[in-house]
C-alpha cells in the first residue's frame, strides 16, 4: 500500500520535478529533430488526464459516501439499542446502556486514532465483545409475564437484528477505512501528468509561452491528486471526523 502522508507541499514538489522532467524531455526531443505537432493535440491529452483523474476521484467519493453510510448506521444502531433496552428492569437496563455507550466512547477516543491507519482498536473490540456477552446473557431478557408493549413486542428479534447491524456496520467501516490510494493509481496519475507536461512543452516554442504554460500546469494539474489523497484517506485527512460523530452520540442523556 502506498502510504499517502503527502502534504500539499510535497505534492507540488513532485509536480515541480515532473514538470522539470517534462520540460527537459521536450527540449531533448526538439534538439534531436524539429517537431511540428499541432497544438490541438493538447485537447485529447488534457481529456485523457481529466478522465483518469475523474475515474479515480469518483471511486474515492463513492468510498467516502459508503463510509459515511456505515458510520451513520453504526451511530443509529447504538442509539436504537440504547433505546430498546428501556424494556429491561432498572439494573439490567443501566448495565446494558453503560456497555453500549462504553463501546461508542471507545470508538470516539481510541478507534478514531487507530482507524487513521485503517486499523481497529483493541479497546473497541473488547467493548463490543462485552456488549455481545451481555446480550447473550439472561440479563438481556425482559421480565416474563409483563404486558407486551410496542417496545417489548419481538424484543429478542429486534435486539438480534440490531446487534447484527452494529457488527455489520463496524466491519464495513473498518474494511473501507484502509487507505485506498494505491501505488498503481499514483503511478497512473504521475504518468498522465508527465505526458501532458511533455506535450505542452513540445507544442510551445516561445520561451515566455513555455514559462506560462509550465506555471499553469503546475498550479492546476496537481489539484486532482490532492483531492484523491484527501478522499482516499478520509479519516486522516479529516473529511470524516469520526471522533466528533461519536462524541455527539454521547452528548445526549438517555
Amino acid at each position: 500500500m502506498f502510504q499517502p502522508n503527502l502534504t500539499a507541499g510535497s505534492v507540488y514538489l513532485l509536480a515541480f520535478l515532473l514538470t522539470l522532467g517534462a520540460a527537459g524531455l521536450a527540449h531533448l526531443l526538439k534538439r534531436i529533430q524539429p517537431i511540428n505537432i499541432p497544438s490541438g493535440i493538447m485537447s485529447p491529452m488534457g481529456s485523457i488526464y481529466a478522465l483518469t483523474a475523474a475515474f479515480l476521484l469518483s471511486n474515492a467519493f463513492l468510498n467516502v459516501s459508503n463510509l459515511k453510510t456505515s458510520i451513520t448506521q453504526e451511530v443509529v444502531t447504538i442509539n436504537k439499542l440504547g433505546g430498546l433496552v428501556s424494556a429491561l428492569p432498572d439494573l439490567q437496563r443501566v448495565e446494558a446502556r453503560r456497555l453500549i455507550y462504553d463501546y461508542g466512547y471507545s470508538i470516539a477516543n481510541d478507534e478514531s486514532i487507530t482507524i487513521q491507519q485503517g486499523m481497529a482498536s483493541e479497546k473497541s473490540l473488547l467493548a463490543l465483545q462485552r456488549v455481545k456477552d451481555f446480550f447473550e446473557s439472561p440479563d438481556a431478557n425482559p421480565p416474563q409475564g409483563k404486558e407486551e408493549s410496542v417496545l417489548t413486542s419481538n424484543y429478542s428479534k429486534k435486539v438480534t437484528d440490531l446487534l447484527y447491524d452494529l457488527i455489520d456496520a463496524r466491519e464495513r467501516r473498518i474494511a473501507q477505512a484502509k487507505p485506498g490510494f494505491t501505488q498503481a493509481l499514483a503511478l497512473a496519475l504521475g504518468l498522465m501528468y508527465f505526458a501532458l507536461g511533455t506535450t505542452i512543452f513540445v507544442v510551445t516554442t516561445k520561451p515566455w509561452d513555455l514559462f506560462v504554460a509550465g506555471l499553469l500546469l503546475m498550479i492546476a494539474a496537481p489539484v486532482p491528486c490532492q483531492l484523491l489523497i484527501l478522499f482516499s484517506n478520509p479519516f486522516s485527512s479529516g473529511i470524516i471526523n469520526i471522533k466528533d460523530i461519536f462524541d455527539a452520540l454521547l452528548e445526549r442523556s438517555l
Partner: protein
Amino acid sequence: MKKGKQIILNLLATIALATGTPSRSEVGILPRSILLGQSAAFSGPSGELGREFRKGAHEYIQQVNAQGGIYGREIVVIYRDDQYEPARTLTNTKQLVEQEGVFALFGYVGTPTFQAALPIIEANQVPVIATVSGAQALRKLNKSSVFNIRASYHDELSAIVKYLKHYGKKDIALIYQNDSFGKDGKLGLEKALKGEGLRPPVVNLPIPRKAALHVIQKVTQSTVAAKPDAVITISAYNNVANVVEALRQKKSDAQIFTISFVGSQALARQLGKNGHGVGISQVVPFPWDARMPLVKEYQNLITKNRSNTQYGFSSLEGFLAAKVLVEALKDSGPEPTRKKFVAALERMQGKSFGGYRISFSPENHNGSKYVELTFITGGKGAFIH
C-alpha cells in the same frame, strides 16, 4: 347608628372569612404571604446543589404564586447561603427562626450543616421539609418536625452494592469524607455489604472535607494497591472529582461510584472526559425521561416559564420538594399552623406526585426509598440511566 355600624363590620368579617381572605394566625403566616426559610450552600464546594435545588423549587413556587398562592397567600422563601459550613448554617437558622420568624424551613443542604442547626430547630419546633441529605441522623428524628423526602444514603449504597454484586464486582474500596456525612456513608456501605453477604471494604480511607491534592494522591495510591473491583467515594464533588482524576491517572480500571449528594452535573462538568463511566446513585427520577408524569410536568413548567433552569437531578429534587410542600400547605387549610402543617404531611401515605410516591406517617418522617443508578457518559456532562 352605632349598632348598625357594628352589624356592618360583623357582616364584612363574616364575608371575609367565607371568601377566605387571609389573616395572621401563626409565626410566618402573614396576611398575604407564608414565610419559609432556606439555609443552604449556594456557593462553595456544594454550591451547585443548593443553587439548582432552589431553581427547581422556584419554578413550581412561582407558578403557585402566579395562580393565587395558597388560599390567597404567596409563598415567600428567604434564602441564606451557608457555603456548606456548619457554623454559618447555625447563624442563618437563628436569624431565620428567631428574627425573620419563618413558618417552616425548607431544602437544607448537607448533614453536618443540618446537624449544627438542629438544636435551634428542635427548641422552636419549626417544621423542616426536604433536607438535601440522606444521613441516618436525620432519619431517626421521627418524633420531631423534620420530614425527609429523599431516600437515605444507606438506601443509595444498598442499590450500588446490589448492582456491583450482580455484575461480579465484589472487592470494594471506600474513600469517605471524615465527618458525619462520610461516616454515615461508611456505615451504610458496611451494612449493605453485610446484607449482600460480601466482604467488608478492602480499604476504608478517610479524607478531610477539603482534601489537599497530596492527600488525594496518597489515598488513591493505597486504593489502587489494594486492586479493588470498585471504588466508592463519599464526599462533596471537588473531593470526588480529584479522586476520580487521580484514579484515572493511575490507570485504575475499577468501577467508580459515588452518591447523589455529590452534585452530579457539577461533577460531570468538572471531570470532562475523565468522568465517563463514573456511576452515581440518584434519589429522583431521571430528569430527561418524560415518561414519568412528574418529570413531564417539570419539563413542561421549565419550558412554560422560559427560565434558564437546565434539566438536572438537583433542580428536579427542588421541584418535587416544592410540590410536596405546597400540597401540605394546601392541606393545612386557610389558617395554617405548624401543627396543622405537620399533621398534613403525616397524612400523606402513599401519595403519588406524578408517579413518585411519598409516604409519611406520625411514626415515619422518611418519605421515599426511591433510588436509581446513573452513569456519566462522554465528556460533556450527559448521563445514562
